[in-house]
């Protein structure tokens, strides 16, 4: 039970990171982006490539940091992968979504994102192969936190949780204390009025994609550290991330954080009563429950 709870919190940490970017894009661009989870895959695979490159360039970087299975090379790769994924998100928007946006209505965007998800996922499969990959082939031993009840935690998982919380706090500071953060919120509230006040809409949209892509990359890498990287990880993550945004309320960054942890914990706690095969259905049940009880989520507001 307590093990499921702890595992749930750890899963929640990367679901939250993924959900933040999704909820921001849904708020500002007003469409449900089904390809958001593919940004997590892009991030995870970018980091894999960078990691291999740096390890071969300088063997010093290949040594592990402390008890983590993480190396110096991977640490640098995370930063680079965030930038690369943010850039890909901006490019995908420039070349696909922006053009669909100009032509059609919001649901065409949902539809385009459906198609993009299919393309990205399978192109990744074609490039990297269909089998799973790991950042490190060495077995990471779990630390025994307590014997009764038995509680195992891997050092990597602790790192993932702390890093995720640090990133979320940094985002909170940016959104609530900087002019940039105010502009972003203004655009979300009312794009036209924000433009009247001299806010560059295009730049703000690009910023949303950079943030979404960057956090998504970290989420994907952390998923890879906790489980393994596969081309279909986006397919498996898209529903839990959507569930997190709906639980938190679409458009609310804090809701997304909380929603991510709630979905992570609930999915793991559900394993106590349900056979593990059913866990992919749990996010859907949570969506249904939220829609029944509180359709706008914990922090969401009704908006047409």
């Amino acid at each position: 039970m307590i093990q499921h709870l702890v595992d749930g919190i750890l899963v929640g940490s990367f679901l939250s990171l993924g959900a933040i970017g999704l909820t921001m894009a849904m708020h500002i661009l007003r469409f449900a982006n089904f390809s958001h989870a593919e940004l997590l895959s892009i991030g995870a695979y970018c980091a894999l490539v960078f990691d291999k490159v740096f390890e071969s360039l300088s063997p010093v970087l290949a040594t592990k940091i402390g008890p983590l299975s993480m190396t110096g090379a991977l640490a640098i790769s995370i930063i680079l992968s965030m930038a690369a994924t943010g850039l890909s998100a901006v490019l995908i928007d420039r070349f696909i979504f922006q053009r669909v946006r100009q032509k059609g209505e919001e649901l065409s965007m949902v539809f385009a994102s459906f198609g993009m998800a299919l393309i990205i996922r399978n192109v990744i499969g074609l490039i990297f192969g269909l089998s799973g990959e790991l950042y490190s082939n060495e077995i990471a031993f779990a630390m025994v936190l307590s014997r009764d009840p038995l509680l195992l935690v891997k050092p990597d998982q602790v790192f993932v949780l702390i890093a995720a919380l640090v990133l979320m706090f940094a985002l909170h500071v940016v959104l609530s204390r900087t002019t940039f953060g105010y502009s972003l919120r203004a655009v979300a509230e009312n794009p036209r009025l924000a433009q009247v006040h001299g806010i560059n809409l295009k730049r703000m949209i690009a910023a949303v994609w950079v943030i979404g892509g960057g956090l998504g990359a970290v989420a994907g890498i952390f998923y890879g550290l906790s489980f393994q990287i596969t081309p279909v990880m986006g397919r498996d993550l898209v529903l839990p991330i959507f569930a997190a945004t709906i639980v938190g309320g679409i458009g609310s960054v804090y809701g997304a954080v909380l929603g991510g942890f709630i979905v992570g914990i609930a999915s793991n706690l559900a394993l106590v009563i349900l056979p593990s095969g059913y866990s992919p259905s749990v996010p859907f049940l949570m969506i249904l429950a939220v829609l029944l009880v509180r359709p706008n989520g914990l922090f969401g507001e009704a908006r047409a």
Partner: protein
Amino acid sequence: MIGFISYLVFFSTVAAILAIAVLGLNLQWGNTGLFNGGIVASFGAGAYGTLILGGTPQDGHLGGFELFYPLALAGGMAFAGGLAWVVGRLTLRLRHDYLAIATFGVAVAFENVMRNATGVTGGAQGIRGFERPLQNLLGSGFSYNLVFLVAVLAFLALVYVFLERLTVSPFGRLLRAIREDETAARSLGKSPDRVRLAAFVTGSVIIGLAGGLYGTFYAFVSPQDVLPILTFQIWAMLIVGGAGNNRGAMAGAFLIWGAWTFSGWALSRFAPVEAQLYTGSIQFVLIGMVIVGMLLWRPQGLFPERLVVSQPGVDTGNKQRD
């Protein structure tokens, strides 16, 4: 030669079944503007419902009610409609993307439950022991397939006529009115939520019919038949054909299914052996590119929606003013 014809019959049967599903989606998306991200759930509900109700008793899973075939098919359609009603009831009054997410979720959960609830659905092994109707009479060879194709085409024609009538009826006008301007429709005393729910459920029942026929044709259904790719294929068919145009939707079904089977055949024939594993991925990329490409370059599809005048009045020379 006979091999080619029998393949053509087989191909047309599947394409016509999918065309029925595309027509159902067209009612939802083309005429009403509802995004259904989980077509496979309705399709699968129809197939599973039909086979469970109409099949012979089997060890290990629910079923064996041996219902009279039309009743079994109707049961499958009702199952699809009921599922759609629950989802629609919960989501249709909310922001439109909730429906997209919820329907997508239904499809994931549906496949997941079918795969795991072995006691009910046979799990990964699927539903066995279904006897196709009239099989005693017609045997199971070419003649059966030919008759089955004719039956499927009849269903397709029936659904087409039903939807065409619906489009020009007051209800069809209401659907388009709500799609174009919900506030205006509401101001006329219409209830958009109820109308949308009716359209969504009707569309899902039609997709359920397609699923039921599909299950009947193969006399078998398993979780492999309700994978998300089917949703993408049916969407691609509609967008290529032209959302809002029933004839376009049917043409799109045959075109895309033709392209899909041809690309599968070409890849298995000409691609090097080591690339065979990736045939599926290449086809998936192609389907994705068809969807995105159409949205970018021809969002109205090959056969765009024709504007319908529900009650053509006396020609008063309005043509000059248009």
